[in-house]
């Protein structure tokens, strides 16, 4: 059975990598991999123990995205919307997501294994930076986003900035579909935020050490 699932997993991971744009088509049908990142190293080989963790993360994320997209399909918004339409869509989507994810809790997507892996992936990016850069990683415009983290809660954009996620950290983590994004709050927590609904999907405490 293990012999059977391994190639299937490898194929699935390969498809996922292509889907995420981690490889580049160079024309003439030839596809070559981008420079290897830790994430790619993990996904490139099913023998790498991290590949199973990443596959699990992607499956959980896909499950969320499928639900989110289904809801968005039912309430599309034009790309030239009015502010009232934007707000209404955001609030409706957030309410619907909360309704279908009533029992969602921290760790549903960022499982303990995923959290440990993500911390490990980000650590070199943080460790190798000078103190000023570390400070810049967690502050924005002299401000620190202080967010009370709770799954399904609204991200408090009214009162807190949306901290810039440094590009080196983004490059060290698995790429996300456009519906969700990584943000760092409270100087150290990694948040998975639904861009369209502006809600906290999951989070990792003390992701930056």
């Amino acid at each position, binding site marked *: 059975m293990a012999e059977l699932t391994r190639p299937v997993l490898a194929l699935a991971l390969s498809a996922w990598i292509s889907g995420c744009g981690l490889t580049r088509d160079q024309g003439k049908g030839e596809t070559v991999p981008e420079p290897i990142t830790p994430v790619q190293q993990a996904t490139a080989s099913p023998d790498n123990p991290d590949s199973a963790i990443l596959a699990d993360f992607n499956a959980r994320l896909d499950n969320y995205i499928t639900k989110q997209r289904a809801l968005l399909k039912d309430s599309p918004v034009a790309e030239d919307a009015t502010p009232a339409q934007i*707000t209404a869509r955001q609030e409706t989507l957030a309410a619907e997501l909360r309704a279908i994810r009533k029992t969602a809790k921290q760790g549903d997507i960022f499982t303990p294994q995923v959290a440990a892996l993500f911390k490990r992936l980000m650590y070199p990016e943080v460790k190798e930076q000078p103190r*000023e850069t570390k400070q810049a990683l967690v502050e924005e415009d002299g401000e620190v986003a202080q967010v009370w983290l709770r799954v399904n809660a609204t991200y408090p954009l009214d009162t807190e900035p*949306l901290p810039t*996620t440094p590009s080196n950290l*983004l490059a060290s983590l698995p790429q996300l579909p456009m519906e969700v994004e990584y943000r760092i709050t409270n100087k150290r927590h990694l948040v998975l935020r639904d861009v369209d609904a502006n809600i906290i999907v999951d989070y990792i405490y003390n992701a930056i050490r």
Partner: protein
Amino acid sequence: MRRILLSTLVLALTGCLTAQPADNLTAQATTSQTARQVQLPNKDGSVKFLVLGDTGTGGSDQLAIAKQAAAFRSRFPFDFAIMLGDNLYGSERPRDYARKFEQPYKPLLDAGVKFYASLGNHDDPNQRMYKLFNMNGERYYTFKPSLTAGVRFFALDSTYMDPKQVEWLEEELANSGSDWKIAFFHHPPYASGMHGSDEILKGQLEPLFVKYGVNVVFTGHEHFYERIKPQKGVQYFVSGSSAKLRRGDIERSSLTAFGYDQGYTFMLVEVDGDQMHFQTIDSRGKSIDTGVIMKGANDKVIGTTGRGAAPKPAQNAPAAKPQNGNPKPQSPDPK
């Protein structure tokens, strides 16, 4: 070759090959300070636009700048504006879109001026759906203001520079045959303020800018105006004081060609052939900085002439931080 020689000659005649040192740009009453005087060629057929950064407060300073921009438009008919992020501070309810954007810029919007926004760290990415920001549902996008002008803009989301966006940018730059490539986004790769240059962002974007011939970059985030000396053939501006201001925040460095942190500002820009003219104006309608960016045959900026003329601060304004003359280290605090 002839083009380069000609451009060099023009630059030499107009004063300098590189931007003037900041020390030479002392406050002085010059004709450039005459209120509401357009100091751009204002030619028919040129590409004219407005640059606004860090606007979305809904406060009186935003209104003052918006009023000046509208007044200048009667003499310098720009067709569109680019926004450098932080388009809406704080709450983003429908009334905020009205108070922090639609009302201040109503005269411009009514006149048909198109606004192209980029996202800042205070902006909900859902702004990408807002019709009047012309982002077409994208966090980063490119546009040409006219089919014939040979100018292309690249609006980036510097708050979330993930590998997908970098890859997109590289593809778009590689496929752009435009003479002028202008990027705009929120966080400055070069700046001499409290936060300094964003080293991580610079590390990602600058190689692409240099490789694919981006000529000019407009950024905000720092709440002042700074013209950076051309870096590797790219001219950078920080223009994040169209509604917020950090007085005395510029610590002039070896990067600074000219800086102004004593008042609110916006920029008018005109692209005419191989020259890009700029004029930076304060909330009283006075010129703060003017100049010309010259592009060589290889698409690199070969020099910028500039004449900054910072007016004296208003009587009640807090004193500026002393400029101690010690340049910041070459790698200033990353942001």
